[in-house]
């Protein structure tokens, strides 16, 4: 396993410790509950925004805690939702007069943990609301009743809701806003290689030298089908078609375009992907007015990328423009 790792079971705690050390004064690591929080949270004049999910998706979400984004992230182990107890304790730590907002990617484990954690916290009279992100078009709602997954699109939900919360928006307003962002956000991803979880020490699945997996989730779970490896433009055309036709986005729309690397793909390639996607959208009369190229929601060291579109309007533009201060300066 070609990784910087000491004890695989300490992979997440050691990473979180590193984040705290690199951000003294602004971020705090709470080892008991595997949690990264803003040093100045919670505040009673601001809804606390909390996201949890498995680890291995960094910078999501432990590295996007900060002013204008998350107040806390409670990650589980690599690719495992956090135990419900962590959700409960994080929620208690983030208790605010104005409430706590849970943002969850629509995965079975995450939903169950947050459900249980919410039940426990509500028993202590904490006001909680939940936002489910499910931007992944690879999974058809109709085919699998577990519904679409939440993937890289959650950055736009976090950014919008985080910005609005800084201005004192109420919990129910944030839920409405987040649902609105989610409803105009669509993503599809694909993997060129598998990834290697530190505790497993070997690739999670096998992908032949001439194969790729279209429609993967953020752990490499399949969504559509395994195909013969194609060149960059052909791959992008396929991702774009799936995304554009889903909402659909149409001529005259202004959109944000995110090309998200899955961890093992260099940023040089992501810009090749971006350039072609941008031009193909222009061909359809869809104008990209905001661009995001880099790693947002990864799958450890997987080579691959996802493409996200968000239909913009004045309110969203203004929220996406708002300042944000996070460990990785990606917004």
């Amino acid at each position: 396993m070609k990784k910087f790792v000491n004890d695989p079971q300490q992979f997440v705690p050691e990473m979180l410790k590193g984040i705290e050390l690199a951000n003294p004064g602004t971020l705090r690591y709470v080892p008991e509950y595997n949690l990264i929080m803003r040093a100045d949270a919670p505040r009673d004049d601001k809804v606390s925004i909390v996201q949890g999910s498995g680890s291995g998706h960094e910078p999501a979400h432990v590295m996007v805690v900060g002013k204008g984004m998350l107040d806390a992230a409670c990650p589980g182990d690599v690719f495992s939702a956090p135990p419900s107890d962590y959700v409960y304790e994080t929620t208690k730590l983030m208790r605010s007069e104005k409430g706590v907002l849970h943002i969850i990617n629509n995965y079975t484990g995450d939903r169950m943990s947050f459900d249980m954690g919410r039940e426990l916290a509500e028993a202590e009279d904490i006001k909680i609301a939940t936002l489910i992100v499910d931007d992944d078009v690879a999974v058809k709602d109709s085919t699998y009743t577990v519904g679409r997954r939440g993937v890289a699109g959650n950055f736009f939900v976090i950014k919008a809701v985080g910005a609005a919360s800084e201005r004192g928006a109420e919990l129910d307003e944030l839920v409405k806003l987040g649902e609105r962002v989610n409803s105009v956000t669509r993503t599809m991803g694909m993997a060129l290689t598998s990834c290697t979880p530190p505790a497993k020490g070997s690739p999670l699945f096998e992908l032949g030298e001439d194969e790729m997996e279209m429609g993967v989730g953020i752990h490499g779970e399949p969504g559509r089908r395994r195909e013969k490896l194609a060149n960059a433009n052909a791959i992008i055309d396929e991702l774009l078609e799936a995304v554009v036709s889903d909402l659909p986005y149409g001529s005259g729309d202004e959109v944000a375009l995110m090309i998200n690397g899955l961890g093992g793909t260099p940023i040089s390639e992501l810009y090749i992907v971006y350039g072609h996607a941008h031009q193909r959208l222009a061909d359809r009369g869809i104008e990209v007015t905001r661009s995001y190229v880099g790693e947002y929601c990864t799958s450890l060291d997987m080579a691959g990328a996802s493409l996200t579109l968000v239909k913009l309007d004045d309110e969203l533009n203004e929220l996406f423009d708002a300042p944000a201060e996070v460990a990785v300066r990606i917004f």
Partner: protein
Amino acid sequence: MSKTALSQAELVVRVIAQTAVGNETYFCELDAVVGDGDFGYSLARGFEVVLGDWDAMEYSDVGGLLKRTAVTLSKRIGGTSGPIWGTAFLRAGGVLTNVTDPGGADVIAALRAAIEGIKQRGSTDLGDKTLLDALVPAVDELEAALGEGAGAALERAAAKARESAEATKGMVAQRGRAAYTGERSRDSVDAGAIGVAVMFEAVTKAWREAGLELA
């Protein structure tokens, strides 16, 4: 509370915990086929705390033991398995709380409550290709065979669990990560179902070796 019932329950919980810890790699491999390969890791991380805290756990009856176990699992296990297994132990413990001398029927009632808890927590049912597809037939068998004595009934239940778990191969997953693979999930067994079978087999073996019968 009869000493015997409690120590039998302790044996069962310990064996389940040891089985989880001892099969970490195997259970991970099963989950890696169409899942994300962490099922064994998750169970092991939870149950090793159950074993480590064993002497410090405070309870006075079987219900208490199961509920303490549930709390530890919920605290330590993330992913799908934490809520699922935590809920199962919690509900079973609830049924056996303040039951002075739990007998066969009580055990079956506890297991049925665990099953209901899993169905509810996972919004799932028999046939979705989850651990329920081994657990439900095994509990049915256990109930039907109780008259033959606990040891024999356990043996029949374990055989049923194994048979049912193997039969998940051929089913299409409707829940959990495996569901995303759709038709591709048909070619492999469900990790959770095999986990249940392995645990039934381990409990049965330990039961025989300890020369026990139901209190």
